[in-house]
């Protein structure tokens, strides 16, 4: 999804596209929770419901030639970057015609066509790879920018520090996008980190670090737009910390017993989509009929993708061996 430069007031289609992108991620993940609970998806999934504004805000500033790397909680980033829904869904259903031939599942979905260098099952592991993607763009002079998403927990991995240092040192066109939802799996940020703001760490590596309300898609987009422009101009990387909210725990079905109920309630009252919908309604950019039409369009698209995935054949017998070379 791309938002043209200059669309900065509520009265434009760019805002509507931001809204639609966020809502699409949420509707897809709501359906994934349903089909997962119904036992139709093998393994386990991690949803990003509550965090959609980050994926949409950042990816709205990227073009198809740009690249993202994401995490185990990566459906939103992947879809916002433009991956088609059918191969995405078929992969999560483990089908032979999924984007990754059914070898990967939810946790490693990728799309070379959409510039999605892959979700990753290892916390913090995407950052060095994103570094290489940004390096390749600088090396080839192809004007591409790379964005890597990671959580607050990943900012304590060595890969974060190594990659920040090298990206700054070499002025690479890279956005470090930290989705700080306050939880590293089952452990709260307060109990594993002395500082509140991960963005402060940017200073230690000689790059700008900014904090935005990750529940406000416009704030995220504005920060990302500046960072992308700097990266493209050869002015190096930026760390953007987006304070956000994880509604459904670490994994689908997580009872979140470790989390105080008032904290969870507070978090679920902060809805990046509902609040943006309010902005759009009040500005007159949408009315109920338009909203209904958007929802209906998404429902049809998602129905079709799930129908496609369910109708897709399972991978052929021992098909996985076709992707092995050594």
């Amino acid at each position, binding site marked *: 999804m791309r938002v043209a430069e200059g669309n900065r007031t509520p009265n434009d289609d760019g805002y509507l596209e931001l809204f639609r992108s966020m809502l699409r991620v949420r509707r897809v993940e709501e359906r994934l929770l349903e089909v997962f609970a119904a036992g139709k998806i093998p393994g386990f999934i991690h949803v990003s419901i509550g965090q959609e504004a980050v994926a949409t805000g950042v990816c709205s500033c990227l073009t198809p030639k740009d*690249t993202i*790397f994401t995490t185990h909680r990566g459906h939103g980033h992947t879809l916002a970057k433009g991956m088609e829904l059918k191969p995405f869904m078929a992969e999560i259903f483990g089908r032979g015609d*999924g*984007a*990754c*031939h059914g*070898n*990967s599942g939810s946790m*490693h979905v*990728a*799309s*070379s*066509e959409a510039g999605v*260098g*892959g979700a*990753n*099952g*290892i916390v913090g*592991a995407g*950052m*060095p*790879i*994103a*570094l*290489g*993607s*940004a*390096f*390749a*763009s600088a*090396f*080839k002079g192809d004007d591409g920018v*790379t964005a890597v998403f990671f959580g607050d927990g990943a900012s304590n991995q*060595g*890969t974060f520090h*190594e*990659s920040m*240092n*090298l990206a700054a*040192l070499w002025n690479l066109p890279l956005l470090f996008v930290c989705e700080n939802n306050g939880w590293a799996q089952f452990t709260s940020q307060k109990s594993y980190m002395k500082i509140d703001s991960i963005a402060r760490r940017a200073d230690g590596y000689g790059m700008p670090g900014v904090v935005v309300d990750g529940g406000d898609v416009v704030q995220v987009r504005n920060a990302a737009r500046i960072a992308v422009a700097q990266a493209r101009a050869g002015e190096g990387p930026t760390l953007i910390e987006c304070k956000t909210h994880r509604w459904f725990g670490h994994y689908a079905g997580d009872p979140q017993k470790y989390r105080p109920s008032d904290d969870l309630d507070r978090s679920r009252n902060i809805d990046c989509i509902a609040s943006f919908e309010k902005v759009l309604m009040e500005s007159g950019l949408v009315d109920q009929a338009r909203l209904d039409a958007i929802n209906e369009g998404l429902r049809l698209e998602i129905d079709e993708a799930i129908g496609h995935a369910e109708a897709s054949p399972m991978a052929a017998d021992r098909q*996985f061996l076709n*992707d*092995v*070379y*050594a």
Partner: protein
Amino acid sequence: MVKETRYIKAINEALHEEMARDENVLVIGEDVGGPGGAFGGTRGLLQAFGERRVRDTPISESAIVGLALGAAMKGLRPVVEVMFADFLPVCMDQIVNQIAKTRFMFGGQFTAPLVIRAPGGAGLNAGPQHSQSIEAWFAHVPGLKVVMPATPADAKGMLKSAIRDPDPVLFLEHKALYASAGPIPDGEYLVPLGKADIRRIGKDVTVVTASRMVQHVLDAAETLAAQGTDIEVIDLRSVTPLDKEAIFKSVEKTSRLIVAHEAVKAFGIGAEIAAMVTEEMIDVLDAPVGRVGAPFSPVPFSQEKQYLPNASDVVHAVEKIMAY
């Protein structure tokens, strides 16, 4: 035409030639630029190809190796130098969970055509953290090609093949071989990966070996020949893909097998080859498969000679198997 060239120089020549051939080939690592690498493998590359393609890095193995992966996914051909093979575990996640699985996990949408060069092995009294032979760790990971050339000619020809390979190659050099000299062909040549080399033809016992151990086995062969035992010496060159055909063919002829490597004997590649031959050729074997390897101990600093398997260990193993 052949010329005598040192092992490290052969590696250096391969890098020069491949960088000249393909502008997407680049060299990344700690001290690979100005200093020319800790052992001189990258000497002259900075002067020849410039800072854009010869990159000195911070001491950040995970970032360096991960960077190579991201760059390879975008079509570049990075050659990373990790200063000692013992440092590979520092970036184990990037090698094992990321690089090795890229093609598989993404269904071929992305690939990882990169080379990681790292010197392993003992012989320089470098102590427990700078002397290990850890090829078996990586041979156990589907998705990595693990090679360990024994001669300057193979080092050059195999490095060139590795750089051109569409998939990741862990190129394990032996630091005690760096100064050794041997003949290498003039001009352009490649040595294929996954192909063993029969270094000595014999009829009584097959000895499968690799890297620095090859010379010990060839020395043992002379002693044994004087005693009337004629061994066939197979230099694996590549651990994975393993040249099963060469091993099987030789054992068909000799009916006796020994695997000799510098690494710790327990759980080493010798165990895999012994099991493989036993599973598939038990009827052919005239004796149990023998193994020669280091004792189950870290590499000691001052007692390396006692620790390392040598030619006389090979002679004893062959005598034992012949007496069975």
